[in-house]
């Protein structure tokens, strides 16, 4: 094994392969660049939906909305997940990264594909939104960009699994995989299923846009697209829950209460979440009520069960760990004495609340056959998924970054005081933002609409002062969250450039 270079992390004792470390660094930095782009664009969108401000014109609103979806939901999250996969395999298992050149291929393909997609959108060749529902047609290079990006992500999963095999073969760990690696493996398995679905839908769409396939059915596209579009969010859930366990361990030394229960919950995600994606089609023609109820009822709730288990398991492990530190007085001393000044810990707590309470519960409600009738495509839906993907996943990933910086980049975080403020600005802002959005959606304000009042249309709609107030709250909290996001990017970049070097 002498041909590979390792260093030993002085804090965690992990043996870190230099090539794994470089790949983690590149993927993490790139993800933050996309977060910055998507965040700036997102703020302009919120300030446009806040009808009193109405910042952008219609063309740029729809264009930026397409870009926001791709930059955040695809680029930021999947680049960060690649870093998570390499960390959870090579670093946690104290092994070398299998075939680093494939890792570089992953990085370059994802970067190239992502850049191509962004260019297509910004040049006005793909005003089709994240969903790109046919028969809305973008330039064929847009679809090619997504395919190239997805191929890159598949390669990342391949490197991850190959690294697991290397670790097993070279006996760098004994017994079963650590829980975080197990969760990352669940995420990677779902990623393979999801990206295959993506191939099934995007390859024919690409050929259709290039003029080779004459016609595509909208409803079939919708069914297949959501096999990709929603399942990809389940990769995020798995990766996020793994990060929850990781942060629990790093911040307070939490030990999973019962490994069997936690791992079974991850398996439930793998088995059931893909089918549950049909809740996007609850008010569509083409599927029977029995079919809709079956897939979104029984199957979805088995995946929800998994989240319910983690919702107990993560806080329980945290409580046990804090009580072991001696905070045993009363029912809540452990909570009071928790390390709230540590941004990674407050990120963990905010992520749990944002994902579980705001995002998860509303998701289950809106995913009901009948209730979906009053939620489909209005602001309730983006309200729901900003709670899951932003207040949940993004918050958790930001929390993990406070450890990635010292452990992987070996730089001390600059301005720790500001860092401890960051989760509250971002997480708090996003929670209010999501709630205000869902509230406005309850009055029928539609999503993805530049002007809810129907300006330029034959008739005008007047939503009234409650909606105006909700949208103002949405806009203001978006500004607060954006400040939190900007602070995150600023501190991360400042740490990389000026942070005090930590020597091994």
């Amino acid at each position, binding site marked *: 094994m002498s041909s590979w270079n390792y260093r030993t992390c002085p804090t*965690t004792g992990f043996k870190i392969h230099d090539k794994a470390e470089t790949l983690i660094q590149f993927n993490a930095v790139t993800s933050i660049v996309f977060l910055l782009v998507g965040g700036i664009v997102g703020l302009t969108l919120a300030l446009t939906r806040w009808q009193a401000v109405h910042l952008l014109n*219609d*063309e740029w609103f*729809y264009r930026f909305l397409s870009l926001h979806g791709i930059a955040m939901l695809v680029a930021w999250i999947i680049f960060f997940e690649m870093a998570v996969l390499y960390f959870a395999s090579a670093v*946690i298992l104290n092994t070398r990264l299998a075939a680093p050149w494939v890792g570089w291929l992953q990085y370059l393909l994802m970067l190239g594909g992502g850049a191509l997609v962004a260019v297509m959108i910004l040049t006005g060749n793909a*005003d089709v*939104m994240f969903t790109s*529902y046919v*028969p*809305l047609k973008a330039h064929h290079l847009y679809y090619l960009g997504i395919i190239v990006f997805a191929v890159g992500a598949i390669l990342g999963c391949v490197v991850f699994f190959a690294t697991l095999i290397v670790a097993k073969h070279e006996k760098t760990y004994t*017994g*079963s995989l*650590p*829980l*975080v690696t197990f969760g990352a493996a669940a995420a990677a398995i779902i990623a393979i299923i999801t990206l295959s679905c993506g191939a099934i839908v995007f390859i024919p769409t690409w050929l259709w846009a290039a003029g080779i396939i004459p016609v595509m*059915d*909208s*409803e079939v596209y*919708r069914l297949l697209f959501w096999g990709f579009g929603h399942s990809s969010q389940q990769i995020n859930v798995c990766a996020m829950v793994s990060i929850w*366990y*990781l942060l629990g361990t790093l911040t307070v030394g939490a*030990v*999973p*209460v*019962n490994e*069997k*229960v936690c791992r079974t919950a991850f398996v439930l995600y793998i088995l059931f979440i893909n089918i549950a994606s049909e809740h996007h089609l609850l*008010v569509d*023609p*083409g599927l*029977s*009520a029995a079919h809709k*109820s079956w897939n979104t*009822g029984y199957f979805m*709730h088995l995946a929800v*069960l998994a989240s*319910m*288990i983690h919702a*107990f398991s993560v806080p*329980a492990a945290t409580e046990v760990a804090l009580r072991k530190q001696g905070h045993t007085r009363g029912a809540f001393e452990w909570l009071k004495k928790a390390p709230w000044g540590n941004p990674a810990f407050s990120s963990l707590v905010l992520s749990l609340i944002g994902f579980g309470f705001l995002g998860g519960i509303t998701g289950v409600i809106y995913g*009901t*056959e*009948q209730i979906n*009738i*009053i939620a*489909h*495509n*209005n602001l309730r839906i983006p309200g729901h998924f900003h709670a899951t993907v932003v207040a949940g996943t993004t918050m958790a990933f930001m929390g993990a970054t406070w450890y990635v910086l010292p452990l992987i980049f070996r730089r001390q975080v600059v301005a720790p005081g500001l860092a401890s403020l960051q989760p509250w600005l971002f997480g708090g802002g996003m929670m209010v933002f999501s709630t205000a959005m869902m509230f406005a959606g309850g*009055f*029928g304000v*539609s999503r*993805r*609409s*530049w002007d809810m009042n*129907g*300006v330029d*249309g*034959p008739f*005008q*709609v007047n939503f009234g002062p409650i909606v105006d107030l909700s949208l103002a709250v949405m806009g203001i909290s978006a500004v607060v969250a954006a400040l939190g996001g900007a602070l995150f990017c600023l501190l991360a970049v400042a740490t990389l450039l000026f942070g005090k070097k930590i020597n091994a």
Partner: protein
Amino acid sequence: MSVTSPQPGWWSTPLHREEKIWITIAVLWCVFITLAMPWWHIFGTQNSSQEYYTINPDDYGAVVDKFIEQYTVGEEAGIPVVAPPAGADMFLRAQQWMWDPILKLKKGESYRLHLSSMDTLHAMSIYPINMNFEVVPGWDYVLTLTPTTSGEFNIICNEFCGIGHHSMIGKIYVES
């Protein structure tokens, strides 16, 4: 620790009492909401329709034109207003970026509302009652509609359908 391999024998570690209680509650809750969905479908009155057919957009357009010709009673903002008899089949056409015709209905009567699109995906959101259905090109989606309140309703498109999406607003009148 979640970053180290678990102790040997982790699979046979018994669950704590609190964990058992929580998982039992969670399972029961999942069973309850799973059963609630078909229960609501059978005994509730608000369900999405199960009636749909495939249709060529051009053929659908011809049916809509015939429907308008048969029942037109006026015009508003350049869009024909039609008043079909109770129980009739009504055909609403979604296209970039308008809904036509304008429907004039009677409170308490049932109608069969057909929805389809001539071009891209659209979705019908009835304001202010906030009911939403997807409108798909190539598919004729039939909803049985019984207005229970009178007044003026708008149809807002809430599926992105191109740059003029936000201007796609239609109208339904319900007379008592």
